[in-house]
């Protein structure tokens, strides 16, 4: 689309879309709505195969597949948060019968997980695969073991003798930033600091009628997907180290090759269908340990992390502390924004550079601001590393900017809707990075619809106080434009008219594979049940990039739209010849190609395929979709960031029990502009799931640490929502304004997690008059705030600050 030379142009649908502006239309054109829902999804009434296998129980996940005689692998983890390793003795562990390998740092050919994650040339601090000198967080891997039985592996793990010399660590961002604080890594505890500004913030602030300040704190949380990190690895007949694992990113094969000092062509990663990921399987999990053990033993090895191990040591969501200072006029118009964000990166960078970037550049939300400034900083601490998690920095700041909007409304005596109405962004408005918003913004419509859908204020059910709240958001989809993102795909028609798709996508359970079949079917008329989608193999499927950043439908969907259209164009002359018609008369539907309006004249896709091949028109296409490319200067903080955004609003009625501080959700509506739904039911599913996860984030989930030690390493005390904790959620995917995905779709995987926290805080305030500044809003915190009349739970903040 935008910078992609290819424009599909023959289907009715595409012509319809072209008529209402592509996503790359100039910013000056007036807003035009998306067309009413057309024929999209005609191929989806048949469920894609993976969903059938899932309900049948027959889908082989990463741990449901193995080899005779495979070894069992375990990771040995340090149980101190900050220490120097004096010595490691593995001799006793090696002596356990059945143990085939005990690896420590010295055994890893290139002991570094290295990735330049920022995309902006920011130096990456090296993370060892196995710690050899220092321990920087509780749970850091120090050894890995492969044995003939799980019992032997676990027994040996307990016999790895590591002598630690405890060191002083820093366990909170305040400790990390204190004068003379010990450094987690050489060079101080500030890992990366972004800043952007437009206009003259100080002058605008001086002109403001009011200056409103607020500080907001969000928690460290775990993804808590139900499938543990797992997989099996082996060396295949060609000497290729092959892993079949639960991962969002098969491209890690290259990083694994570097760790093993093997050519990239000698490490292959196959992604099984995942039992959930949410960003937690975006960084590597079991892969480097499996690969090292497989390569050392030349035997198949299986590894599954225990839930407790996963909660202890796999990366979490960044806790953010956000300080907002907003200048407003008497009428509620924002004239200046000054925003400072601190994010706790934990002990290693992983994707912190990108998360804090996303937080910073999205910190003003869906609100216009001509004079704005942001600073966004990642801080190292001796705690479990933080990295990708659904929403990726851009969701934490929703709690900041939406809390701030409510605070403005309260101080100025305006309604919460009115303050937002005055400030909503529109296409063409300039962001803090100096770039314009390129597509229409449907936040206003989403807000109206969500509040309308909620209807009359709910009645109390248990004698508490009822209140209503809502929150809007604008969150990006697609990778930052300076990554020059791309996705490749292959499509081919078999001689019997069935369709084969090859694309390296990984499937989190959201229907990533299914949507490729739907998109191809839309163009070629082949039904989903006659389409085979091969995904997730770094050696055998064209690479699409991983499933993260709400990019997979946008990127691989556009790639599929491109190759399917190219294949149709390639086959069209053959079809015309067979049917005696022109290309514009062709209709592709129900596994036939025919003459539109003349049901008697059609041929099967099988006949078309065989005829094409006989004429040496090979019925397959491989091509690449290129996303919009942009540039960003980290020194000036100006440039292009994200290709596009998804807008939404969640509205909620709650009941607050003033005796216990307990919040009960009575009614919840989530509305997002999805541009164009490829499969509306699956779109709603994403909204439901993200809202549920966001409600857990808002009310009950938190991994509290003390001196670097996590309190919640059991599912029994890390509280994700059960069916009893959630009401029936109403999810609405509006098709308002076209985005940049296939057929104008906007990404929906991450955005619906953003508004939950602030919508609930808004409702609590409406119910009991107290504004919560910290998530999660546990009964204890709400009760404390009810007693004092204000929320004092944000650490390091005095009353005067808020």
């Amino acid at each position, binding site marked *: 689309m935008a910078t992609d030379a290819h424009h599909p142009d023959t289907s009715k649908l595409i012509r319809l879309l072209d008529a209402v502006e592509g996503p790359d239309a100039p910013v000056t054109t007036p807003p035009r709505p998306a067309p009413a829902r057309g024929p999209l999804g005609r191929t989806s009434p048949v469920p894609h195969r993976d969903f059938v296998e*899932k309900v049948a129980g027959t889908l082989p996940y990463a741990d449901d597949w193995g080899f005779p005689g495979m070894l069992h692998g375990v990771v040995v983890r340090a149980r101190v948060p900050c220490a120097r390793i004096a010595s490691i003795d593995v001799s006793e562990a090696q002596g356990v019968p059945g143990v085939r390998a005990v690896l420590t740092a010295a055994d890893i050919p290139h002991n570094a997980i290295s990735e330049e994650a920022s995309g902006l040339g920011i130096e990456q601090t090296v993370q060892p695969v196995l710690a050899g000198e220092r321990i920087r967080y509780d749970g850091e891997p120090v050894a890995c073991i492969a044995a003939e039985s799980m019992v032997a592996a676990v027994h040996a793990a307990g016999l790895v003798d590591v002598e630690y010399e405890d060191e002083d660590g820093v366990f909170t961002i305040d400790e990390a930033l204190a004068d003379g604080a010990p450094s987690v890594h050489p060079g101080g505890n500030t890992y990366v600091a972004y800043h952007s500004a437009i206009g003259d913030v100080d002058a605008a602030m001086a002109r403001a009628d009011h200056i409103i300040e607020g500080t907001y704190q969000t928690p460290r949380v775990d993804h808590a997907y*139900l499938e543990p990190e797992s997989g099996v690895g082996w060396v295949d007949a060609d000497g290729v180290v092959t892993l079949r694992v639960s991962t969002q990113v098969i491209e890690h094969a290259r990083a694994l090759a570097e760790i093993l000092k093997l050519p990239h062509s000698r490490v292959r990663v196959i992604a099984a269908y995942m*039992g959930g990921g949410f960003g937690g399987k975006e960084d590597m999990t079991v892969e480097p340990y499996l690969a090292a053990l497989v390569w050392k033993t030349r035997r198949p090895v299986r590894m599954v992390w225990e839930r407790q191990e996963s909660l202890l040591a796999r990366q979490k969501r960044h806790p953010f502390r956000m300080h907002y200072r907003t200048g407003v006029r008497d009428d509620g118009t924002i004239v200046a924004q000054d925003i400072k964000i601190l994010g706790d990166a934990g002990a290693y960078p992983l994707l912190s550079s990108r998360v804090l970037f996303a937080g910073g550049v999205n910190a003003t939300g869906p609100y216009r601001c001509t004079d704005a400034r942001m600073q966004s900083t990642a801080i190292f601490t001796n705690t479990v590393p933080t990295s990708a998690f659904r929403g990726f920095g851009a969701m934490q700041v929703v709690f900041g900017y939406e809390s701030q909007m409510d605070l403005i409304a309260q101080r100025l005596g305006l309604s919460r809707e009115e303050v937002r109405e005055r400030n909503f962004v529109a296409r063409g408005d300039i962001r803090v990075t100096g770039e314009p918003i390129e597509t229409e913004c449907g936040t206003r419509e989403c807000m109206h619809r969500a509040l309308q859908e909620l209807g009359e204020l709910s009645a109390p059910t248990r004698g508490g106080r009822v209140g209503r709240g809502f929150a809007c958001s604008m969150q990006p989809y697609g990778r930052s434009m300076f990554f020059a993102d791309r996705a490749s795909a292959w499509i081919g028609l078999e001689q019997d008219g069935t369709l084969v798709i090859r694309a390296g996508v990984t499937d989190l359970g*959201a229907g990533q594979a299914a949507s490729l079949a739907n998109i191809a079917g839309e163009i070629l008329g082949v039904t989903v049940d006659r389409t085979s989608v091969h995904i997730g193999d770094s050696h055998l499927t064209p690479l699409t990039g991983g499933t993260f950043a709400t990019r997979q439908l946008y990127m691989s969907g556009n790639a599929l739209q491109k190759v399917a259209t190219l294949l149709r164009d390639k086959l069209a002359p053959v079809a015309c010849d067979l049917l005696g018609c022109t290309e514009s008369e062709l209709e592709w539907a129900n596994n036939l190609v025919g003459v539109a309006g003349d049901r008697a004249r059609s041929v099967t896709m099988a006949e078309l395929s065989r005829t094409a091949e006989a004429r040496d028109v090979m019925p397959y296409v491989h091509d690449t979709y290129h996303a919009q490319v942009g540039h960003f200067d980290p020194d000036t903080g100006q440039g292009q960031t994200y290709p596009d955004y998804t807008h939404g609003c969640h509205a909620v009625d709650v009941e607050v029990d003033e005796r216990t501080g307990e919040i009960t959700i009575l009614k919840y509506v989530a509305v997002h502009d999805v541009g164009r739904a490829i499969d509306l039911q699956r779109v*709603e*599913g994403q909204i*439901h799931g993200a809202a549920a996860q966001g409600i857990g984030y808002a009310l009950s989930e938190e991994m509290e640490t003390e001196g670097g030690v996590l309190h919640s390493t059991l*599912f029994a005390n890390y509280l*994700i929502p059960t069916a009893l904790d959630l009401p029936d*959620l109403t999810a609405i995917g509006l098709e308002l304004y076209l985005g940049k995905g296939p057929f104008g779709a906007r990404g929906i995987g991450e955005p619906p997690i953003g508004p939950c926290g602030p919508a609930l805080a808004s409702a609590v305030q409406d119910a009991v008059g107290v504004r919560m500044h910290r998530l999660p809003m546990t009964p204890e915190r709400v009760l404390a705030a009810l007693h004092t009349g204000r929320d004092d739970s944000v650490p390091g903040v005095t009353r005067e600050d808020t």
Partner: protein
Amino acid sequence: MTATRGHLISISINGRPTEFAVEPNLSLLELLRTDGGSPEVKLGCGEGVCGTCTVLLDGEPVNACLVWAVQADGCEITTVRGLAAEGELHDLQNAFLDHAGSQCGFCTPGMLLTVKWYLDRHPAADREELRHAIAGNLCRCTGYTKILDAIEAYRDLRLKDGDGH
């Protein structure tokens, strides 16, 4: 199957009695996933909280991770593959398909068994009762709304058909 180690036990899995020689510290979950040939029973937390490994033991739902294999000696185990004949789907499974009650699918086998057990005993259960019934089966993908939609659709179907699918 050799009987040279551990205890000889006999378990019927989805109607097929089989003998196993097991160590006393082997969980039913581990047995089912390995020698038991039933990888459709999933490990979620291993601590009896998430309900992912739910199977029916003599018709009652249990967390297979908290049951020793030797405790299941002489028992009937039903896994999700026992709901319908090989190659077919049970009406409850079809309801989950129709209503998108399954996303990543990892909680689905345990969820389906809990629901089947509950509706067999409470065929006219209302939505709130069903919500309580599945409170021990965690799902991180769906937010439960579509799961409850699917369960209600199946409940209505079996009430209408009256043949207790």
